């Protein structure tokens, strides 16, 4: 059973649809008490950093999530949801959950590439034997749409992706997982990833 946090900042519908397709149990949650009793959390996120932190705080979800994850519940942050797991972002002034050290930076205009990074891109697995990407050589492509990327220490990088810079497309530390891309929009690659998170 996985609990999907609905705070108005993310695309909950598609995540539920994918789980339904896989025959996996989900519950969409909106309140602090529901977070406190969740076994596993998925935190989707679409939008901008500060607006998201504000929404989570206003709905008493920020502290609830912080506590539950510190107790050991696995969490998967998606897109902005991943960025919120970190300390902060150039995009805003507010602090994130700080489950994983690091900040998010904006893609440099000097790269001469369109910003946001928008479209399908491949990921390269950097950690051996990780439960989300057990096979280092497996081909995976996912849908990305973001202007900011995560800067974390090497041991927290799960996969990297090339877009002018080689950036961390997914991060992991203990029970905290974050993916910059949208598994719920990445066909069989996303189905596979969500299935693996479910069975962690």
């Amino acid at each position, binding site marked *: 059973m996985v609990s999907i946090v609905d705070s*108005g900042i993310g*695309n*909950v*519908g*598609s995540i539920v*649809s*994918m789980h339904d*397709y896989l025959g996996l149990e989900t519950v969409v949650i909106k309140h602090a008490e529901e977070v406190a009793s969740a076994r596993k959390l998925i935190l989707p996120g*679409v*939008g*901008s950093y500060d*607006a998201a932190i504000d929404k989570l705080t206003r709905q008493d979800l920020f502290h609830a999530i912080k506590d539950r994850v510190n107790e050991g519940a696995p969490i998967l942050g998606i897109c*902005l949801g991943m960025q919120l797991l970190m300390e902060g972002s150039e995009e805003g002034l507010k602090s994130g959950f700080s489950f994983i050290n690091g900040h998010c930076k904006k893609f440099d*205009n000097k790269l*001469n590439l*369109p*910003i*946001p*990074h*928008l*479209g*399908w*891109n491949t990921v390269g697995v950097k950690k051996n034997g990780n439960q989300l990407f057990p096979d280092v050589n497996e081909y995976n*492509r996912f*849908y*990305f*749409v*973001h*202007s900011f990327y995560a800067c974390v220490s090497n041991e927290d990088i799960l996969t990297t992706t*090339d*877009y002018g810079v080689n950036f961390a497309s997914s991060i992991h530390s203990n029970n905290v997982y974050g993916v910059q891309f*949208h598994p*719920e*929009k*990445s*066909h*069989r690659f*996303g*189905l596979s990833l969500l299935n693996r998170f479910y069975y962690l």
Partner: protein
Amino acid sequence: MVYQRIIPVLLVKDNVLVKSVNFKSHKYVGDPINAVKIFNEKEVDELIILDLDASKHNGEPNYNLLKSLTRECFMPLTYGGGVNTLNDVERIFSIGVEKVSLNQAVLNNAPFIEEAINTFGAQSISAIVNIKKDFFGNYCLFDYKKKKKKRIDLHKYTKELEDKGFGEILYYDVDGDGTFKGINQDLLKSLMKSTSIPVVFCGGAASHEELISVLKDNRNLSGIAAGSVFIYHGKHNAVLINYPQNKDRYNDNNLY
């Protein structure tokens, strides 16, 4: 590096799928939910759904249809049509749509656009720019609701949209729409010169092969969109949902 996208555009009118020629003569094609299911099975890169009724009748976005469509979609969905307020944008995202496309709102310089971009991020709001030639062959901005053309400097206009903070621009060549006559390469190349945000071009594609060759020739083009080539098939234009095979597209050397 990011792959270039090949994107089917689905037009919805009265809750059914239609196809137009030059933005006119909308012919019935089929059931949108079925079409989305099939595209989903074909693992298309992305889908654009444009609801024609909403904008024309000052109506709201087609929420019910959207809910049914997103359930079938394991790829990104962009929705346009009748998006008039910040609340519309929020509702659309909560249903499970990745991007909202604005057309009338852009033409009318609607004030909610700035707030939408700030709240939801530039990457989730795209602008649709319909382009049509006038009698003298000049490229004009086309307002399909008022059926009016306005001669503009496309480069300047693009810059303005960029400055406004849009995350993507979809250029729709009205003169090419539904004609299979081939993509207007001059127009495309001139549009590509102006911008540093992702650009998608739509209108006039003759075949799958042409889509791929246009992507190859324009590496900075983020995506190419089309309607007729994915909906019609064969000499007699039978309705048959089709899409280039992914195994032919995604390999080590291809970026499209």
